């Protein structure tokens, strides 16, 4: 329990730091939110008046504190570039990105765990060598490119989905998942290739350990040794890696959303950076960071459950 408390503390401090860094970043990059808002009516005087109205002329840390207290109490502020609250702007979009990332992540696990184990079992056979070679190729393919290939092959030629189409989960839940399936696969494949490679070599490393020889000597079959002894040890680095891939997956979904025209946070994030709509950007950055940090935290807890030797302090 102490371990969990300590990890939770680290999690909160990390989130706080990330939000502060994101906040400070916008003080440095060029571009002024009032310029976009005033458009042709821009004059330095009007810009100054508007900055005052928006509270932008106050000290950075005062503004950060205001934002933080608002955020904690559930008020994420008002968007600069849409006459709406940030929560309204983001309505329905977080679900898309979260569902897409989660689906991609589950696909990574669903593909790589069985494949990694199978390849370790078939080590040295022809099928193993073919897959190992193919793995290198799949690892190198960027998700957006797979996305373009998928839209062409599965969308335009095979007509399995309508590229550019989308339904909200409220309208049709299965339709919603259907539209996410190919984007999720495009994100998952390169990651799955990496995890497969990691799991395969992790298992093979473990196979050389002394306890494996002991297990064989007790009359276990190769499969029995793998399942009963090796897997539990071999999976540990994979769980940690899986948690870390989530950051990549969320980043990947931001790009892939563009390719498949999905209305997720990614498009909103890019547009809001262009518009210098700091409240929206800040909120998305913190949500994405929270998602990633939280998954890492989850992985730590899972790892500890698998291997009780891992303790803190």
């Amino acid at each position, binding site marked *: 329990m102490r371990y969990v408390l300590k990890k939770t503390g680290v999690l909160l401090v990390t989130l706080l730091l990330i939000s502060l860094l994101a906040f400070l970043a916008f003080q440095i990059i060029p571009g002024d939110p009032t*310029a976009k808002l005033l*458009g042709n009516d821009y004059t330095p005087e009007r810009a100054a008046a508007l900055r005052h109205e928006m509270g932008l002329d106050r000290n950075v840390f005062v503004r950060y504190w205001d934002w933080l207290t608002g955020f904690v109490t559930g008020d994420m502020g008002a968007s600069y570039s849409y006459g709406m609250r940030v929560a309204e702007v983001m309505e329905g979009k977080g679900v898309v990105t979260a569902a897409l990332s989660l689906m991609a992540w589950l696909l990574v696990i669903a593909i790589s765990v069985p494949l990694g184990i199978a390849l370790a079992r078939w080590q040295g056979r022809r099928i193993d060598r073919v897959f190992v070679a193919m793995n290198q190729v799949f690892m190198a393919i960027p998700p957006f490119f797979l996305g373009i290939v998928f839209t062409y092959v599965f969308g335009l030629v095979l007509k399995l989905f309508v*590229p550019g*189409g989308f339904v909200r989960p*409220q309208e049709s839940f299965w339709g919603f998942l259907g539209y996410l399936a190919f984007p999720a696969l495009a994100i998952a494949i390169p990651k799955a290739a990496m995890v497969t490679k990691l799991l395969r070599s992790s298992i093979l490393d473990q196979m050389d350990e002394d306890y494996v020889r002991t297990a064989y000597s007790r009359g276990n079959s190769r499969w029995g040794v793998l399942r009963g002894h090796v897997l539990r040890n071999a999976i540990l680095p994979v769980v940690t890696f899986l948690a870390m891939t989530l950051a990549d997956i969320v980043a990947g979904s931001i790009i892939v959303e563009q390719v498949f025209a999905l209305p997720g946070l990614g*498009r909103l994030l890019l547009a809001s950076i262009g518009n210098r709509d700091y409240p929206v950007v800040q909120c998305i950055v913190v949500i994405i960071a929270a998602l990633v940090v939280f998954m890492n935290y*989850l992985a730590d*807890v899972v790892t500890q459950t698998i291997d*009780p030797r891992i303790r803190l302090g």
Partner: protein
Amino acid sequence: MTKRILTLALTLVMTAALFIGGGQSAWAAENGSTGDAELIVGIAADLDSSLDPHVSSSSAGTREVLFNIYEGLLKPDTEGNLVPAVAEDYTVSEAADQYTFTLREGVRFHDGSEVTAGDVVYSLTRAAGLDTGEPLMATLANVAGVEAADDKTVVVTLSTPDVEFPAYMTAAIIPEGSDPADGIVGTGPFRYVSRSPQENIVMERFEDYWGEKARCAKVTFRVIEDGQTMVMSLRSGAIDLAAHLEASQVAELADLTVLEGSMNLVQAVYLNNAQPPFDEPLVRQALCYGVDKQMVIDLAGDGHGFAVGSSMYPAFGKYFDAELTDFYQPDAQKALELLAQAGYDAAHPLAFTITVPSNYTPHVDAAQVVVNLLDQLGGAVKAEIQQVEWATWYSDVYQGRQFEATVCGMDASTLTASAMLSRFVSDSPKNFIGFVNADYDAAYAAALATEDDAEQVARFRDCQSILAQQAANVYIQDLADFVVMQPNVTGYRFYPLYVMDLGCVEKTA
């Protein structure tokens, strides 16, 4: 161990709650009573934050969507004429300083109320800023007073006579006392339903529209910023219609309906006349001789596009001076001579940067061709391209005027010559190229002052000639505008302005 499992279980439940919490299911039941089609239109950029029709800083992309929702006393037709809308008719006083509008019977707002003279007075007073002293729409700065003569008659008085004034009466009419920030209510063929940033804007047919009712029951504008995704969505049938496509995109869409029109803007290499090196007319003229605009059109636009030679495009009809197009014949020798006079040669090349907004492919492509053409001047010109994002371009180049050269397009918000030419008056706040020329200012003032149409046309043409002679900018073209529709969609019409009229677009099953 139990504690650990408990923690794990709790964490998992929390994660699940995070995902499920987002999707509150409210089944939007499709009633389908009208049985009419829903049109899905792809647009390349999200609308502005404010959908206030009286805010003059609105982008062209916002104006073309709002055209379907708001109407003025008058509205433009496809020929560029002004036709009555909320007003039925108008008369103008002898001195052209008083306009009397008679309102049409039975025009209703989207909230069901009937348009009265009070609404018109409120709208025009608001747009002209008569109560605040600061006009929301710069075009209405000349309005001195708006009053209702009776329930169906509105009289607008101007400070100085202006025969172009009716063109500004396309300003939207909104209900008395309303603020577009609280709700979007107009009189157009469609009524606003909802918007979701970076995703869509939805509008529905207004059943009580005074004129010909819209053919489609519902129109959804989907925001698709990526050009390749737009093409893919058209091919897959995810969207029914998209405008403002480029020749290269259209090439992939051969089996759909493709219409070719014009963007109604002037694309040019806009030069900062206020700073070296382009404060020297010889240098600007040298660039005009060095850039073959037909090459730019052929290479960047596949030959589609209409060459222009000054700040005016062909849809302006009588105001457009076609002879200026070839004012500078491409001539490398001449360009080199002028550069030499200004002190530039291969040993001391003219070096400058062209700043281009990266989200506008046609401008980026044109800039690339321009750089290649200038490279062929024997090393006397060294131009390089700097791509910046739109927000940076807008604040640094357009507002900050911190640039040497830029490729972009300038359009007109109303079909008046001054909408294109007022920008280059020496003290205009929109004069981002810092063009200062006393003859130009005089010709422009003379054009505004006169009530004689032929005289006005002549003076506005003088303005264009001065821009060409002074080589204020390296003028290129009015870009080609492609509209692509699914085969079951018909009825799209081009306007000489940057608008997208969807009322007449029809979609069959």
